[in-house]
């Protein structure tokens, strides 16, 4: 009973502190919320949510007749693309480039003077390029423009290839074709390409990777990953911060006073450990429920989520107690807690959960830290993993947490002997 009294007193102290509340619940939800606001709508593939990229087009191709340059300008100005790009026709190349340099536009599209002639002149094999002059700080907008123009050009490229292959194959087999045969082949290809263009995205069977089965929307998947990273960072922080009451009470002399009471020292320390565990449990459960309600995160099936909650609490409590066992004064605790948690959190992958294409060796480095193991478990639950998938990280969390807890207890016992 005394254990619970001591734990309750410490918890009361924690939960009365505005600072502790902000660190436990406010900051992880704030950071995740900012990501949610930043990418809401966009990541789910809804490009309408993006501001249209400002494009300056300069058409140096003034060829009469075919006028493919004009066709490209018309294509870029078409109504269907207005949500993606905002096109302004520029009088000359210099002013188009200047518009990009002065950030009046994100991309300048420069259609070369020989554009139409190159398309028409299949005999010489000459080539040409449409130049995209882009603001180097932009990525998405120029990529969209590049794709649009690439598709447009491939239509012409395909027509030329169709004519060229027919001529080459006929020549190889000794068949003479009249001059129009290649043009007819190109035209036929062009007609086929137009029918294909009307049926986009039918050539590939797109599937999300395994992690997105529980959070089938890419945005929810990103937000789930970010939230997991932030939750674990601040849970480990709370573990150490709550355990810091031992040092505070030692400094203030209240711990020494407690030791003079009939309550044994191991019981007093046990009460403080219980307070850390219950505080962390409340924090994890609150964050999981709140983020599920606020951001629609599906953390996974209840059983593996329950397992990982316990694993996280045990490991964060053990790690926090161990950190504090090395601290002599509250003055030392700031840099020790801040420094150690930032570095292990960073190496454990908590700061990079929203990143893509992280080198694979980094997954191995993650597992050198306690945070890396719990993150692995939570990533599995977010991906719809069952108990079988999280049992490894869970066991490591429990065993490591208890081991750190044991070491911390030994250090505290020697310190307060």
């Amino acid at each position: 009973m005394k254990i619970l009294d001591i734990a309750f007193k410490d918890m009361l102290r924690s939960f009365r502190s505005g600072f502790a509340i902000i660190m436990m619940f406010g900051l992880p939800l704030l950071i995740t919320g900012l990501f949610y606001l930043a990418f809401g709508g966009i990541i789910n593939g809804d490009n309408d949510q993006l501001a249209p990229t400002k494009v300056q087009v300069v058409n140096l191709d003034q060829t009469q007749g075919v006028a493919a340059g004009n066709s490209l300008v018309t294509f870029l100005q078409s109504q269907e693309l207005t949500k993606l790009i905002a096109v302004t026709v520029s009088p000359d190349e210099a002013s188009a480039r200047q518009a990009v340099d002065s950030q009046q536009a994100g991309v300048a599209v420069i259609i070369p003077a020989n554009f139409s002639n190159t398309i028409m002149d299949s005999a010489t094999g000459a080539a040409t390029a449409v130049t995209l002059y882009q603001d180097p700080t932009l990525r998405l907008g120029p990529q969209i423009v590049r794709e649009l123009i690439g598709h447009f050009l491939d239509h012409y490229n395909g027509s030329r290839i169709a004519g060229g292959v027919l001529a080459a194959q006929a020549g190889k087999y000794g068949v003479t074709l009249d001059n129009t045969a290649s043009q007819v082949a190109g035209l036929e290809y062009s007609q086929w390409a137009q029918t294909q263009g009307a049926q986009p995205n039918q050539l590939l069977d797109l599937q999300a990777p395994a992690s997105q089965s529980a959070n089938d929307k890419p945005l929810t998947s990103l937000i789930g990953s970010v939230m997991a990273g932030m939750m674990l960072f601040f849970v480990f922080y709370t573990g150490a911060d709550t355990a810091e009451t031992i040092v505070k009470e030692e400094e203030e002399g209240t711990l020494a006073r407690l030791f003079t009471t009939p309550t044994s020292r191991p019981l007093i320390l046990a009460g403080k450990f219980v307070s850390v565990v219950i505080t962390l449990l409340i924090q994890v459960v609150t964050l999981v429920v709140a983020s599920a309600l606020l951001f629609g995160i599906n953390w996974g099936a209840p059983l593996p989520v329950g397992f990982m909650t316990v694993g996280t609490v045990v490991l964060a409590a053990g790690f926090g107690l161990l950190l504090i066992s090395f601290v002599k004064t509250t003055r030392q605790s700031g840099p020790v807690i801040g420094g150690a948690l930032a570095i292990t959190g960073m190496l454990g992958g908590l700061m990079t959960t929203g990143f893509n294409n992280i080198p694979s060796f980094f997954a191995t480095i993650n597992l050198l830290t306690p945070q890396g193991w719990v993150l692995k478990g939570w990533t599995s639950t977010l991906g719809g993993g069952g108990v079988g998938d999280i049992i490894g990280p869970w066991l490591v969390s429990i065993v490591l947490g208890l081991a750190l807890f044991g070491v911390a207890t030994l250090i505290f016992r020697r310190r307060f002997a």
Partner: protein
Amino acid sequence: MRIFTLAFKDLLQTTRDVRTAVFVVVMPLLFTYFLIAVNGGASGSSTDSRLALAFINHDPNGIVSAQFFNLLGNSEVVRLGVPDENAQARISEQVRDGTYTAAVIVPAGYSEQLIAGTPVKPQVIVDQGSESGQSALNAIETASDRLQGALQTARQTTQTFEARQPFTDATARQNFFNEALAAATGAWKTPTLTVRTEQGGTQSTGNQVSPATQLSPGILVQFVVLGLVSICVVFFLERKTQTLSRMLTTPISPLGILLGHGLAMAGLIFFQEILLITFGQIAFGVDYLRDPLAVLLVMVALAVWAASLGLLIAVFARVMEQVVMFSLIAMFTLSTLGGCWFPLEITGPVFSTIGHLTPSAWAMEGFQNVIVRGQGIGAVLLPVGILMAYTVVFFSIVTWKFQRRTSLNMA
């Protein structure tokens, strides 16, 4: 002179605190190195920077699948890898874990069915929510479109030729078709019309801008705010321990006290900026020295603005913990909204518009105008002016609050 004495005292007090070394020096350097390295922005890396694409072919002898492989192999965006059988079984997890950005799985009988005109789709496993996933998917779609185009070309060519000169048998026809398909696929390697990308400012044709040019200034701006904590604490403790009240009885004016503390904050931040900029330049080749004067202007404006933010936190905080709390909230909010962690371009229009109003966004703009856009001093004047305007507003609030406190004898 008193202002400088006060600033010197603050700096001395702060640098003696181990927290300063941790939060101003060690953590920002580690974060900069780590985040840039993880993003593949470390300089001197000679590895292929294209996105890894797994190609699993269940149609090993098919001519169309072979041409699909060739077309993907030509891509400047993806580099092909063929996973072994064990890896194939876990391919979805490997895409999730980032071993591969995407995977293409060609079904058995793919070539035969396509040649026969039966629709058949290769499976593509990709995270469409990620920027790299989208880039990989675009490359796959381009290759797939071109493959369909090559098939159409082969069909047309075979039919046109057959109309002129019938084939002796089905094998001859199939051989002719295969040759035409190979010729068309080969022609797609060097299309007549291409798109050439020029990066503005750097004038480097087609080169991708290193992630370090986003993350190096981004982490700098982020840690400038966090670095304020230790020196804010000094000012705050002066307030709480009545040292400040005692100082107000001396000839130094309240404004002088604020300027002294502000100068110390700006000095500490400026030192941190020099450290991080030197590190970014040397370790990652971020070209801060392209125009040293322009960068210096942004550094000074950022340091002065951050100092005014530090004073604001210190005069409004009621307890010590609030100093840390306000600093952390400011750091996370301003870093995210200001585009320190990701470019505002890839966020929604509302977020992006609000983000562009923050001082952190203007600091990023100032640095990136020089290091990425390759512009000079003229391009940093607006960001610097806006940072200074924020400084004036913040400092006015600080002065008002401080004078109110001193007049009420609450300092």
